[in-house]
């Protein structure tokens, strides 16, 4: 009983606590490109997912997001946008851009779990593959370009960020495959008519 309430409290307050930490550590996390893009941004998405107990979507909202299509499209745009070096740098010196960064990634994190639940594995595969491919290509560009893409970050930092983006793309792809491995196994034909007979 006691453990349960403990766990419930953790689930409820984990999101706000992480958000507070992310707000408090903005300066050190944004001081290097690597920490900015590969620590702060992913943690913001995770934080959005943890904040779900505090966000109540109106009933029927899922109607606007069948198969998670709207959420996945938004996710593809948001990941692309925050991998543009200039966009990342704008978040450094423009409070509006930084606000949009927090808002877009928190929202993305809050919507993704529901979208993943609704989406068929093929839909998931389409978007995951797209996002991972884009991330890997962006990472390779970061590594290959001889000039700095952000005026505020050092070239070595950019190299490291590029390698890490390629690594993250691979890790995301592999993680998705492991989670969804059961879909790839040959399944015996099942009489479907009884379940979907409508």
């Amino acid at each position, binding site marked *: 009983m006691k453990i349960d309430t403990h766990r419930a409290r953790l689930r409820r307050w984990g999101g706000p606590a992480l958000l507070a930490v992310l707000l408090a550590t903005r300066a050190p996390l944004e001081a290097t490109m690597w920490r900015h893009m590969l620590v702060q941004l992913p943690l913001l998405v995770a934080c959005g997912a943890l904040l779900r107990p505090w966000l109540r979507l109106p009933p029927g909202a*899922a*109607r*606007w*997001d*069948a*198969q998670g*299509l*709207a959420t996945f*499209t*938004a996710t*593809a*745009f*948001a990941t*692309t*946008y925050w991998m*543009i*070096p*200039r*966009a990342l*740098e*704008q978040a450094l010196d423009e409070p509006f851009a930084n606000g949009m960064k927090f808002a877009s990634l928190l929202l993305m994190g809050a919507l993704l779990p529901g979208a993943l639940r609704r989406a*068929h594995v*093929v839909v998931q595969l389409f978007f995951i593959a797209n996002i991972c491919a884009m991330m890997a290509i962006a990472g390779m560009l970061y590594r290959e370009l001889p*000039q*700095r*893409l*952000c*005026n*505020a*970050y*050092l*070239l070595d930092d950019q190299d490291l960020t590029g390698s890490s983006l390629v690594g993250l793309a691979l890790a995301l792809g592999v993680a998705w495959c492991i989670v969804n491995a059961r879909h790839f196994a040959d399944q015996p034909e099942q009489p479907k008519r009884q379940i979907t007979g409508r």
Partner: protein
Amino acid sequence: MNSPRTSRPGSRATAFAVLAVLLAGSAALYYGTSGFRAISTESARRIAVAERPIQAPPARLAGADGGATLLADELARDGRITLVTFIYARCQSICRVVGTELQQMQQQIVARGAADKVRLVTISFDPRDDARALAQYGRQMNTDPGVWRLYGIPDAGERQRLLDAFGVIVVPAPLGEFEHNAAFHVMDRGARLVRILDYTEPDAALAEALARAVEET
């Protein structure tokens, strides 16, 4: 799963939502890339200056000879088109390249007989670069004061405002070095920054400055 014939209740709403996301996302990308033209801050800065020149804020320059003048006065008095570069004197990396290029540009300007139209000004952003450090740098570079002058900006606030206005960002790097977005800044006699050219394109920068000089006379 979804056959096209069985349109589900949520499919139209979802189509609207996806369309809205596509529009908003495209608008964001357009904004973030200066109209799909720039992915780096530096290219965005160069596009912005080419479209809308930037007036230099007031800044007092201290020369290698110890004299002090306002940047705007200096440019107006001189009357030539000026190629401004930013450096720090103890630089071992990019500024060395830029320094060598500036030396060659100085020779080019003299050889082409363009010393009455175009000149070079190099401004240090390192507060440690006093008149002595600048004079020493000038000796290393063999500067001809008629074509190429070196300055520092002693007042920290003025120095930072000039760098900010021009979008020059200086980042401390290991071993006491700095990294900064090195470039040739074309300035007219009205103290306006009119073009920025990459530090790897000294010929283009010189050509641009000469074209401006002809245009303005």
